[in-house]
């Protein structure tokens, strides 16, 4: 029986792999559900045993892929606090934000001064995580029910809220050449009168994530 411990170097990698895979699926699905791109470029696929939509536009896919590739090291180090998919209107003002708030559970308490390795049989752990992720995916696919329609001509971008001094390292190490992180414009971050719609919270042993949408009160403007 394989066990994972927090001390393992690759533990963070495992979490990052899982999350990035999930985020890729989720971003594609969000783009489909929120009609950022015409539905024609999407294909139906199966992931986590549920149908999802995935874009088959190579440049878009490459962009998403590259972005997540750069997000991965941050998640590995537990530096990413939030990964945000921002949908912006023509004026580049955000109308919707899909916020994936990620927190990896802390290791120990003062009562247990020694970090007890989290012993989880990886099979059950992974299938449990998969169930949770599936639930999030399903929530995304029905989120249009609780959201207002977006104005036409929307674009999207991905923001990462990092913890502490992670940006400094990010500047130093570019995971992909010519694909650097830049500090988000105030305009892209600030939303007028945001309304928060919680979609899903998942809690597993390795990661805790909640997904909520922030929506601008008046979308058509």
């Amino acid at each position, binding site marked *: 029986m394989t066990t994972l411990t927090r001390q393992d170097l690759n533990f963070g990698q495992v979490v990052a792999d899982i999350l990035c895979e999930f985020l890729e699926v989720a971003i594609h699905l969000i783009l489909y559900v929120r009609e950022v791109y015409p539905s024609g470029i999407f294909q139906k696929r199966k992931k986590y045993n549920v149908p999802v939509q995935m874009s088959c536009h190579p440049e878009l896919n490459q962009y998403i892929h590259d972005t997540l590739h750069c997000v991965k090291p941050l998640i590995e180090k537990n530096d990413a606090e939030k990964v945000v998919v921002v949908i912006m209107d023509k004026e580049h003002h955000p109308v919707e934000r899909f916020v994936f708030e990620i927190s990896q559970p802390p290791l120990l*308490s003062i009562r247990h001064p020694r970090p007890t390795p989290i012993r989880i049989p990886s099979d059950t752990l992974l299938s449990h995580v998969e169930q949770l992720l599936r639930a999030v995916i399903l929530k995304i696919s029905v989120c249009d029910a609780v959201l207002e329609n977006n104005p036409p001509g929307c674009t999207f971008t991905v923001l990462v809220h990092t*913890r502490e*001094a992670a940006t400094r390292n990010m500047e130093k190490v570019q995971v992909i050449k010519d694909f650097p992180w830049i500090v988000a414009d105030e305009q892209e971050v600030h939303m007028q009168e*945001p*309304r928060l719609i919680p979609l899903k*919270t998942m809690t597993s042993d390795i990661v805790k994530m909640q997904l909520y949408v922030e*929506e601008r009160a008046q979308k058509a403007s």
Partner: protein
Amino acid sequence: MSRDGRRKRDRDDNGWASRGGYMAAKVSKLDEQFKMDAPREKQKDGACSSIFTGVAIYVNGYTDPTADELRRLMMLHGGQFHMYYSRSKTTHIIATNLPNSKIQELRDQKVVRPEWITDSIKAGRLLSYLQYQLYAKQKGLSFPSLLPIPSLNNLIPGLNNPAPSLGKPLSSHHTPTSSHSHLHIDNLLPQPNQYNPLAGHLNPQPSHSLPLPSHLNPQSRHPRQSDSPPEKPFPLDNPNSSNSPVRLNGSHHNAFTPNPSPLETNSLSAIPSNPAPPDSDHQSALAKTGGIISEFYSHSRLHHISTWRSEFSEYVNTLQSRRRATGAATFPGRDRLKRQRREVCLSPDVSVCCSGSSAAPGPQSCILHVDMDCFFVSVGIRHRPDLKGKPVAVTSNRGSGRVAQRPGVDRQLELQYYQRKSSHAGVSERKDGDLEEMTSAESHVSHGNGVDPDTTCLSMAEIASCSYEARQAGVRNGMFFGQAKQLCPSLQSVPYDFQAYKEVALAMYETLASYTHNIEALSCDEALVDGSALLVELGATPEELASAIRTDVRERTGCTASVGMGSNILLARMATRKAKPDGQYLLRSEEVDDFIRDHTVTSLPGVGRSMGAKLASLGVRSCGDLQQVSLQQLQKEFGPRTGQTLFRFCRGLDDRPVRSEKERKSVSAEMNYNIRFTQVDEAELFLTNLSMEVQKRLQGAGLRGRRLTLKVMVRKVGAPVEPSKYGGHGICDSLARSVTLAQSTDSGQLIASEVIKLFHAMRLEVQDLRGVGLQVQLLDGAHSAPHDPSGPKTRSIRDMLLAQRPPAQHNHTGVCVCEKSSSASVPPPFSTLRPPSPADPIPGTSKEEPLPTTRTPNHVRTRLNLSIEVPSPSQVDRSVLDALPAELREQVERSWTHRDTERSHNGSHHRPSSPHPSSLLSSPSSPPPPAALPVGTLVLQIPNQPGQPGSTGIILELPDFSQVHTQTFSLMPIPPLHTHIFHVSVSVCLNPLLQLKQVGAGRVKRRYKKKNANSSPTKKGPSPLKRPHPPGNRPVKVLQHPLRPRDLSNGLKLENGPSTSSLKQDVPETLSKFTPRPEPTLAGACDFTDIRTLLREWVTTISEPMEEDILQVVKYCTDLIEDKDLEKLDLVIKYMKRLMQQSVESVWSMAFDFILDNVQVVVQQTYGSTLKIT
């Protein structure tokens, strides 16, 4: 051999055996220092003698008196003190407590208790050390019949290397039939493994670090473990926790394991004069290693120098305060200058040039930057004229600059690393040439066969300071001595002389203080003087003042100083560069542009290597280049603050004032020398000790801090395990983590627990740790220290609020912020309701720095424990309300109208709404500190996460909202100017007892009823929300235990009992906030279906909700937000909405509105947006 044993041997191999030249040099240097200090000590302390002539002691571990004191005593009385143990030179080892492994090592040495020294001094002669021996005494007492042994033992210590055969006859003489004799033999045996073959019947196992049950049997015990009783100075109940396997100063103290066998307790109880009182084992362990950290600091030169700065700042502060106290001060220097000028002006021939130049200064400000010329060197040679004009360096190395190479050291690799790093950074023009020198040395080496002994063995002692002559030869400060010696073979080295540095520095500061008190201490050898007022008063030119100061300094200290003058700090500092050495330079405002344009950017303060490299990559090398870069670009590149600073600096603009009184921003302790842990426990213990050191410093400065930063240096992957500098950190990655505490603290324990948590969260290999630092920021005075609730440092809430930077874009009504405190005294109920004090500005208005624009609410991580209420209309600023979302505003207004009708019934209890906000504030000097505020009340706490480099690229230390107080508030009328800023209001203190009582009677409508202290009828039966608690445990009861709720407010956490009756249960939970957050619960329920049942029951069975219960629900909701479970929160809110708005009673829908308002406020704070409720 056991693993431990092998490790020890390994250490011996690369430790003592090969320290070679380095250690030898260090030891001789220390000896020299000792000799130099001795006469000085003797001078200071009249009582001196030479009773210890020929005695050289080495102090091992913690002793009483301390090692420093013993050193002083040895100085006074003719003895010698060795910092490092030397088998051949050290005659006595002083110890009260030795670990097992040490005893093995030192068994043939004279190990003596420190009382020997103190008693000898008392007696005035050298007493025999025999009765002070650490082992012999035990032996003598435990086994008085065995006379030959102590006497034999007394003979042996005279021999430094006893014959190995000695053990044989002895052990055969004492047949090991009982453990008693084991003890003797073992103490006498020089080598344990020689014993083993003889003691064949004994357990041949190596010593264990854990006491095994079998060891309880004296017969089966291994001889080595029977060592433990004699070395143990006091009875320790729990041997495990008393072991402190922290490895400091290069030695790994093995855990010694005293076994609780009857034998040992016997021998221990037989000690008549136990030197140390029986202490709790934990404390003793701390004392031991904590002492080592203190010792490290008392010997670290960098530490000395860095503390001087604060000392001199302190000195300037006292000057200032003294002046304030006396009203006027005497400035002898100023007076002298005045006199001189008068004379000069009287003599006609000079007056012409005088008047000519005096036109220059004008009314503008003039800052003088006084800097001693190569301070350490000039102090070091001020009594050695033979060295003047020669290349001199101050360093710890004495010899030729060569040391033997230690194994496991890969200097090559480190050199390559630094070289690569620097070339990668693209710093082509580097002002300090040392790295380049390194590279040239490196390339020269690489031609050979990889390793050239000549270069690899250069001394790694750093040059602290070198004379200008040496600088001409290419030697630079911070260079390694060996390398410098290659560059400049005639380089002379001068040892450190901290005492002299201090004297000279003090003299310099005194000189400056004789002119003015507007001094800012920058370091021990440089200071800023604001001469504007002085020059106006004297009518003198800056040059005159500067030369007067310089002459004075030279006369008083024998060292030269340079003075740079400019209209601001930046220019003054840059002028100093031109002035040096031994000169002065006035940078006139008209010259500034030309002057600064040619300077390289790295000469600007705050522009270091990395920023220089970054600028170079933008094509910016000189300040002139930098002037071409737009502010926007700079801010984008470096963040708003740094960008702005750069933009101004390169134009010679600097508006920093000379701050003679400085407030400390942080208190820290850091050690990155000799950090080698093997186990997590060691690291934890070290962190604990470091925390204690920080505690010491915090308490020394009378400060408490709220933000902790743990900085660690970790060996870079692939870097050699042993760096080339002995005990150094080598190539490292630096990592830092911070945490903001709920309240400011100076408790080492608290800091330790937080830091250990941080440490574990970093998931590091302890073996790779090379440096650990601990910093406490967000300081405030120890005003709420339990022992001194009304101390002079008391700060009011106003101060706290003023210190806080509210995050932008928050609009709030009804949020009360007040400081959480840990005062031990119950405050008077209405202490803060005092008459308006005109001096109090309105909180939240005076902010000297602009808000960082990128700080959006999303970054505020909020933790809430309780709720918020809507204040009464009279207390709310209309403009704030108007800024709210329409929906929220409506609800607020609705609640007001409702309340107004209700209030008319019990208007007599209503607290009169205050005419002016400041009446609600305690004035700064008023005795009840903010401590008086939330005692025992339900507290809502919002520590945010300061500084989001994620969006700005720089760290802005933003103050936090500490707590939000429910129940009592008033909102300040805030000038419209600031309406876009998060508004904070100050809560009026309300006695917890009153509040608790009121809860029993209270409903929503009675929120503002304050004074019905004696009426607490419980109108309703227990509501469903209170079911888990015993019915008798009503709030009224809590009243009789006024101390309890306060404890709770320290603990800050209402776990599952938001009902006040549960307060008592939570009382001991002061540490509970360190435990991982359990799932939020509502009256014990956490599953959503249970919650639903509970809520349904609550709404359907009770006609009017009680305030207490509503607060409970609100607290649950805020807990959910904090727990990041918005999904559940959403469901709960929606369910409540359905339930409550369907209810026939309008009170319920009002209650829902109230809950929703509060939840929205918290959501707004946490996420910057409000929940969409459909």
